[in-house]
């Protein structure tokens, strides 16, 4: 839209003017209709969805007001609005949680300065390490200085016919040995101390990042791949670690060495010093040019590397599917492709990189040549002694090799900077389910009343929940029914506060759940999922997961109530048996009952059963159902079930479709209405009959 001139249009609003909102494939449309015609239509990206919805609602209110007293209503928008996406900011939040996207700028070396936050606790050790670096570098600079008197006072006079003075030689050689020993001790101390500190900084970085990652909302995890996150926490922190303990230390030593050498050279002979230091700016310029090329390259390598890890992380957990569909070849190919991509990117980078080191070496040789030439000329004119020239050449040898190793720091810094950026991407990410600034305390006795008012939720560019109202009384069991994709699971995720609603509120006992501390709130919720997840550990540990201090008696009581006690006792090590990854195999029903015991043990006020029985056969379902009956008693329960028969015990059924509640009532009422529920029920009956027939046929075949 051209910015120069605002293109205002004015409509006379008919009495039934309305703004209709719809979206498809990421594009929203806002239609102004009234008097039986469409007056105008606007398209917008879904980032503006919330604003458009508010505008539509505002018009609606305004029209309602106008028809009452004929005057338009002015409605002030309360609260702050995000300058980017126009979404209302939550109270106390500084950054908009909806548009806070990851920063896509290339990593700057300055990112590394952010690491200081982790270095602060060790500043004393760092200071000591720096002092040691200074001292050890100075010690290494003594030997070349000694070559000067050795040449001028011992060797040259000898050539001119004077005998060698053994005491003088002993003195200088002793000095050389002493300096070497001192440099050795100091070098050892500085490397040890700094390595120790950097290892600790790396460990702190890893722990902090992981802790922060755990506090992020499910939305964050939903949008990212496991392999990438694992790589970030594992490899990147390690890379930063190595950078700090090795490369940065070397670099600091090099810089000190160059500075000190320069000072020494100038004090010996300023003219020759200038000539010697001449190639320095060239090398500096070269480093700068290559730096830019390498920066983006290394970031690309990181991404490609994450891609390689992702292939593994995708395939290994899904290996059954891979094998079942005989796709080993394809998965192998996918890995090979990712690997080849890795190679390509590396090759491109290495082309620049490989040119770099030899060029520096060439400059070194040229530099030496110049010093030789100019030095000989100076000696010929008696401006300097042979000893001075020898000392210069000895210094320069070290000096330029330092420059060469210094040039290597470029790539390491870039790698570490891109690693630091990827780490800080996680660390700087504000949870989209933020902890409240001033949390409201829950009463000691939570009744478990849940109120959902005008809730709306968008998943990516798709509105999943729209304007939903629901009231659940304490102790009531409701069944959520609907086709898959009707928003049942999303509603449950919103109630658990795995996500926050985009619009509206969800309240527990009359308190907005966003005002409660997340841990306090979640402690009130017991969750039983379709695919129960067991952690690696003993059965007892798994049951006590939500309450690590539970006594053994409590664990047994919970397992009994969950009808898990007997099968657990049948296992060779009883409650001490290992389960989970690499552990003893358990059937789906057994896992489910362990997860029910887990939920029972924390004695939650609210219970959420998300398809808890749909992954098991009918016989097992009965067992689980018995366990669930114990669990449901006296608790506010929200059950999602695909099989309507499992919701017989529900006090009320809530039928959802496309993100809204379409029907409410008990089974008989809903059947009498002959609406959405009735259709679902009929469809399932028919399917069950058909399945029964097939199953019966199979059974007969087996018998025969």
């Amino acid at each position: 839209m051209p910015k120069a001139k605002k293109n205002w249009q004015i409509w006379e609003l008919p009495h039934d003017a309305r703004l209709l909102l719809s979206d498809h494939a990421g594009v929203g449309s806002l239609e102004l209709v009234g008097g039986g015609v469409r007056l105008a239509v606007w398209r917008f990206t879904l980032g503006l969805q919330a604003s458009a919805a508010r505008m539509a609602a505002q018009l609606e209110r305004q029209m309602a007001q106008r028809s009452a007293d004929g005057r338009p209503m002015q409605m002030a928008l309360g609260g702050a609005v995000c300058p980017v996406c126009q979404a209302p900011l939550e109270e106390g939040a500084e950054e908009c949680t909806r548009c806070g996207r990851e920063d896509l700028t290339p990593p700057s070396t300055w990112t590394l300065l952010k690491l200081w936050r982790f270095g602060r606790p060790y500043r004393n050790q760092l200071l000591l390490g720096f002092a040691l670096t200074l001292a050890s570098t100075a010690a290494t600079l003594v030997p070349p200085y000694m070559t000067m008197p050795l040449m001028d006072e011992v060797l040259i006079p000898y050539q001119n016919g004077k005998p060698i003075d053994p005491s003088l030689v002993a003195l200088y050689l002793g000095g050389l040995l002493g300096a070497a020993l001192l440099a050795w001790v100091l070098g050892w101390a500085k490397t040890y101390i700094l390595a120790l500190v950097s290892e600790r900084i790396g460990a702190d970085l890893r722990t902090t990042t992981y802790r922060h990652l755990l506090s992020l909302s499910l939305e964050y995890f939903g949008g990212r791949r496991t392999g990438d996150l694992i790589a970030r926490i594992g490899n990147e922190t390690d890379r930063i670690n190595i950078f700090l303990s090795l490369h940065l230390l070397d670099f600091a030593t090099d810089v000190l060495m160059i500075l000190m050498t320069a000072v020494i050279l100038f004090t010996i002979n300023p003219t020759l010093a200038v000539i010697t230091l001449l190639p320095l700016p060239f090398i500096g310029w070269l480093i700068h040019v290559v730096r830019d090329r390498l920066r983006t390259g290394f970031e690309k390598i990181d991404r490609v590397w994450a891609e390689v890890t992702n292939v593994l992380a995708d395939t290994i957990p899904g290996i059954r599917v891979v094998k079942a569909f005989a796709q080993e070849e394809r998965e192998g190919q996918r890995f090979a492709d990712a690997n080849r991509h890795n190679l390509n990117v590396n090759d491109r980078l290495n082309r620049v990189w490989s040119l770099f080191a030899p060029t520096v070496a060439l400059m070194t040789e040229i530099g030496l040549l110049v010093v030789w030439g100019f030095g000989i000329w100076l000696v010929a004119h008696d401006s300097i002694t042979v000893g001075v020239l020898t000392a210069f050449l000895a210094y320069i040898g070290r000096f330029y090799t330092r420059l060469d190793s210094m040039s290597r720091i470029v790539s390491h810094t870039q790698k570490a900077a891109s690693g630091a950026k990827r780490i800080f991407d996680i660390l700087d990410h504000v949870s989209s389910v933020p902890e409240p600034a001033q949390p409201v305390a829950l009463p000691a006795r939570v009744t478990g009343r849940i109120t959902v008012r005008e809730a709306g939720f968008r998943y990516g560019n798709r509105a999943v929940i729209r304007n939903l109202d629901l009231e659940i009384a304490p102790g009531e069991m409701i069944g959520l029914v609907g086709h898959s994709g009707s928003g049942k699971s999303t509603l449950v995720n919103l109630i658990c506060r795995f996500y926050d609603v985009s619009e509206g509120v969800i309240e527990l006992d009359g308190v907005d759940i966003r005002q409660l501390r997340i841990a306090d709130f979640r402690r009130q919720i017991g969750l039983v999922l379709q695919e129960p997840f067991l952690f690696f550990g003993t059965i007892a540990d798994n049951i006590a997961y939500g309450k690590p201090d539970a006594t053994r008696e409590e664990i047994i009581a919970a397992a009994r109530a969950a009808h898990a006690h007997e099968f657990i006792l049948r296992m060779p090590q009883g409650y001490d048996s290992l389960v989970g990854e690499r552990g003893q195999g358990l059937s789906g029903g057994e896992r489910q009952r362990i997860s029910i015991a887990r939920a029972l043990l924390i004695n939650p006020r609210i219970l959420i059963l998300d398809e808890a029985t749909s992954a098991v056969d009918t016989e097992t379902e009965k067992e689980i159902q018995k366990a669930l009956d114990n669990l449901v008693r006296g608790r506010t329960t929200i059950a999602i079930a695909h099989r309507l028969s499992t919701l017989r015990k529900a006090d009320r059924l809530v039928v959802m479709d496309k993100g809204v509640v379409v029907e409410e009532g008990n089974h008989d009422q809903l059947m009498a209405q002959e609406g959405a529920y009735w259709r679902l029920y009929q469809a399932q009956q028919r399917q069950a009959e058909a399945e029964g027939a097939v199953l019966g046929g199979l059974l007969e075949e087996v018998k025969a």
Partner: protein
Amino acid sequence: MSAQLERNPLGRWVWTDARGMRHEQVVVVRAYPVTAPEQGVGIMDAEGHELAWFDRLDQVAQPLQALLREAVAEREFLPEIQRLLDVSSLVTPSFWTVQTDRGQARFMLKGEEDIRRLTGKTLIVSDVDGVQYLIRDPLALDKHSRKLLDRFM
């Protein structure tokens, strides 16, 4: 009539409950054989259903307690490794010769992943046949054993 545990002529355990019902072929199991052997003992019938439960084994009246212990000991086999005498190689698969509380044993360890950490310090070593050995506290082993074990952890 009080409940009673006895051995039938075939050597199987028979549980007669308080109402005089006889259950043949019962097994006595511990809930926490490793972490709390004295806590929680159950009697299960042949189908795996629980018949009786004792919260603490050491508080069960005699002679029932002795019988329960006998039955448990008969069923459970979880030798505790006291010393690693020798390992055939430091890379798996490897044959281990160990001194356990049930005598000397030699078994094959298939891979490092068969040494698992149970709650706390306790380690469980599963051999290639599925027999499990317990190492209650690796740090309490003698130096030679610790050195050998360390190569696999």
